[in-house]
């Protein structure tokens, strides 16, 4: 006898358990098959249903019943092939016959642990609520006592500094009667004047060739044509050898992380470098997934990637969550900063990147005492990643706003707020407000911000959002061709268009930043720490950040 559970599908999931439900319109569908072909997870498939049709052809109802077989597009209920809501089906459908709809009643996380494997994904924290950064407003508006500036007419210098800045008391200056001269042979830590929005670390390997190339071209264009010194971080995994030996290297920050991938190639290229890189970033943590290391799946390790990283093809490349050589911040981190500085003759700023944490101030204070530490990069919990455990992404980490503010005020207490620049990241532009989030972080004390997820969305149309949409970066099946090494997928992405969009984003954001700074009467220097310009829409946030509350 057939067991009951087989008959009533009792051990299967319902569509209502899944995060997205496909809305398919039979009347519009031409059965072209494009949607099923393009679905990156095979969540939909062609199927046949038996249909009972009742019709009448006489003047009075004389119903006749016929059965026919019809072709349908059906959503599968297998959790391994759950609809991610990416919407690629809707993108290709010529008759607007299909689209995924978010199902707020889903119980996806309850079931997504088959074979004892927790849910892993890419993207950022699945929290669609309004972020703290989006609850901040600029409320110090210059009016009649201090005339507002004109964003379109006045000069604005939206630039920041990356590097350890000597305090005035320690500058090697000699005062004559009327001029200051610099003492000979004095060591001056390297400082770069850069645009205050950096493109954060995303590796070649995590990103497809056209995506990385598009970003790099956009950055080069911004520097060389638009005169905007935007810098971009390589991410862990090195850079193409030709780029390392090119004059464009000065627009890039090289990242070294716990796997040291790509550094064999970098070290070999050192004697041939025409320019120094913009900086060296030592990654100790990532805001999106504290405690989770990096992992480039074997199917992404193709010839190009393997070559750049100096590893065999088709093997998993795991970066441990921690640096294996790191046993204390006082020694190991200091040594690493010093080694990296030494490799470029102390001409390149070297700074660590950590994930947002309640212990950030301990790191900060250690770096403040280390004269070679060039900055501290704090990556908040709303940052993105290519691959991580869902629990690490959703539940681990610290929001950037209060973490940054605490660190800045700590530096203020020590009088070192201008010596060690703070770089803030993690959720900048999460709701599309890149300029506003940037300005808010600057006024809370950041010298610069970094973006990753935002630029993927804005420049290449990344589908991911905080409703767990798409988030397939880890699978190598990115439907936009952004985080994949599969030529069939990444050929969808035109690097020139990505570069164009990068330029669009920075130019428009620059105008928006002027639109924020102008009515606040700021134009000559970045308003770092100008906390009286900010208000929070919630009293608790205002109190925590030590800013005004406005309602």
């Amino acid at each position, binding site marked *: 006898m057939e067991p009951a559970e087989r008959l009533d599908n009792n051990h299967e999931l319902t569509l209502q358990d899944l995060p997205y439900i496909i809305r398919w319109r039979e009347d519009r569908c031409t059965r072209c098959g494009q949607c099923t072909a393009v679905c990156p997870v095979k969540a939909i498939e062609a199927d046949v249903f038996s249909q009972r049709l009742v019709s009448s052809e006489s003047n009075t109802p004389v119903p006749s019943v016929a059965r026919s077989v019809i072709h349908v597009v059906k959503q599968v209920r297998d959790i391994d092939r759950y609809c991610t809501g990416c919407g690629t089906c809707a993108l290709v459908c010529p008759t607007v016959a299909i689209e995924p709809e978010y199902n707020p009643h889903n119980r996806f996380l309850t079931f997504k642990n088959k074979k004892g494997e927790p849910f892993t994904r890419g993207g950022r924290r699945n929290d669609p609520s309004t972020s703290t950064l989006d609850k901040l407003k600029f409320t110090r508006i210059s009016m009649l006592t201090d005339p507002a500036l004109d964003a379109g007419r006045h000069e604005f210098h939206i630039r920041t500094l990356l590097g350890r800045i*000597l305090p005035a008391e320690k500058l090697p200056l000699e005062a004559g009667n009327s001029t200051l001269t610099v003492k000979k042979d004095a060591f001056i830590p390297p400082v770069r004047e850069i645009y205050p929005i950096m493109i954060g670390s995303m590796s070649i390997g995590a990103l497809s060739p056209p995506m990385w190339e598009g970003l790099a071209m956009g950055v080069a264009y911004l520097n060389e044509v638009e005169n905007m010194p935007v810098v971009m971080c390589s991410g862990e995994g090195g850079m193409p050898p030709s780029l390392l030996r090119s004059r464009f290297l000065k627009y890039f920050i090289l990242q070294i992380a716990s796997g040291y991938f790509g550094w064999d190639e970098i070290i070999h290229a050192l004697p041939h470098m025409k320019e120094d890189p913009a900086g060296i970033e030592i990654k100790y943590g990532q805001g999106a997934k504290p405690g989770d290391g990096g992992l480039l799946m074997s199917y992404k390790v193709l010839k190009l990637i393997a070559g750049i990283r100096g590893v065999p093809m088709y093997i998993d490349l795991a970066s441990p969550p921690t640096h294996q050589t790191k046993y204390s911040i006082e020694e190991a981190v200091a040594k690493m900063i010093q080694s990296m500085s030494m490799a470029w003759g102390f001409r390149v700023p070297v700074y660590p990147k950590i994930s947002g944490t309640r212990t950030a101030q301990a790191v900060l204070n250690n770096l403040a005492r280390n004269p070679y530490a060039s900055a501290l990069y704090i990556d908040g919990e709303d940052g993105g990643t290519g691959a991580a455990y869902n629990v690490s992404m959703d539940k681990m980490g610290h929001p950037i706003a209060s973490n940054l503010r605490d660190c800045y005020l700590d530096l203020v207490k020590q009088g070192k707020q201008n010596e060690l620049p703070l770089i803030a990241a993690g959720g900048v532009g999460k709701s599309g407000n890149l300029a506003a989030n940037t300005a808010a972080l600057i006024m809370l004390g950041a010298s610069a911000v970094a973006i990753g997820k935002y630029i993927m969305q804005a420049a290449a149309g990344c589908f991911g959002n905080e409703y767990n949409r798409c988030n397939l970066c880890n699978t190598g099946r990115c439907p936009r061709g952004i985080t994949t090494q599969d030529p069939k997928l990444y050929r969808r992405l035109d690097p020139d268009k990505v570069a164009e969009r990068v330029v669009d984003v920075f130019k428009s954001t620059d105008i928006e930043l002027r639109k924020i700074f102008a009515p606040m009467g700021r134009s000559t220097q970045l308003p770092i*720490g100008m906390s009286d310009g900010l208000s929070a829409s919630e009293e608790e946030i205002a109190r925590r950040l030590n800013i005004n509350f406005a309602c």
Partner: protein
Amino acid sequence: MCRLAAITSNEYFSPMENILALNTMKEGHDGSGLGLVLKNLGGEFEGLKDNPILSAICSEKGLEIMDNYMESLGFYIKHVWKPVIRNSPDIPRHDHYIANVYEYPKAYQDRSFKDKEDLLMNTRLTLRNMGEADSSIFVFSFYPDILTLKEVGDPLELAEFFGLDNDPLKAKIIFAQGRQNTNYQIYLYACHPFFIQGYCTMTNGENTAFIPIKEFLESRGNPGYMGYNSDSEVFSHILHYMARELGYPLTYYKDIVTPLTTKEIQGRKDRDAVLMLKAALRPLCIDGPNCVIGFTPDGTTFMLQDSKKLRPGIVGGVKGKYSLMSEECGLDRAVPERDKTEDMFPMKYDMVIVSPDAREVKVWNQLKG
């Protein structure tokens, strides 16, 4: 907006000259206060150049507290100047307006001037702390050859209130500010000019970068960098910090408060130093509209504008007497005999510097250095 009237001369003159100049600019201030700082004093102070003068306003109780405290430190009064007050219905009178000239405590008489300066500043700060909560003591300056007068009200009425029109009080450098009360309550400590250890500034403007500058100054570890009841007080402290603490020549004040772009700095001979300053003192960049007038201990006076030149400011005069004013009508009142074609309207890159005793005036251009 406030209105500013500064006069520097090689001869002693009365503060009434500044006040009458301020009065011509009356449309630009609302009579909410007057601040006067006199340097290189003449008259009864002429023979007391080396003795510190404590300029303060006190209640009866405050005076007693102050006298006791000064005595406990070993300061002995050598001379007392008090304005002869003519009461006015519009001016709420405080009990005592004083300018006491002291002899240094014995233990300090042979100490360096720098040590003496620190003693004077710390004494002033302590007195301020003692009397601020109950408004029993307001102390504005405690320094040799410097006298400060401040009060709430219309400048001309205040001049009559203090009897300045009949008083032989004279000086060679006098700064006056007619206050336009804006963001802050009418408060004596918010009234320009601000003075600290020989450096003085007054400002017509609004400092939009106030908070980062204030936080930077407060974290320098200098107890004198406090107060900030007005966002303009930071201008004095920046001047003091860069000139006294860091030892930079005066023109770098302009480079610090209104830094050039990196590209513009490339045209300067001292570009390496200027680039370093721009980075190291990044939080001291002022923004917003500001015309700053100041003097340094040697008697040099100057005027500079913000980097957009959003406030009025004019310098003119004759050899031996120059005036730095908010408006031309003030200058006409102060030095009518000058050649008007020589008047200077400093623009965004300019710093007009008048040498001590008003010997000469020059315009220093920031682009050229």
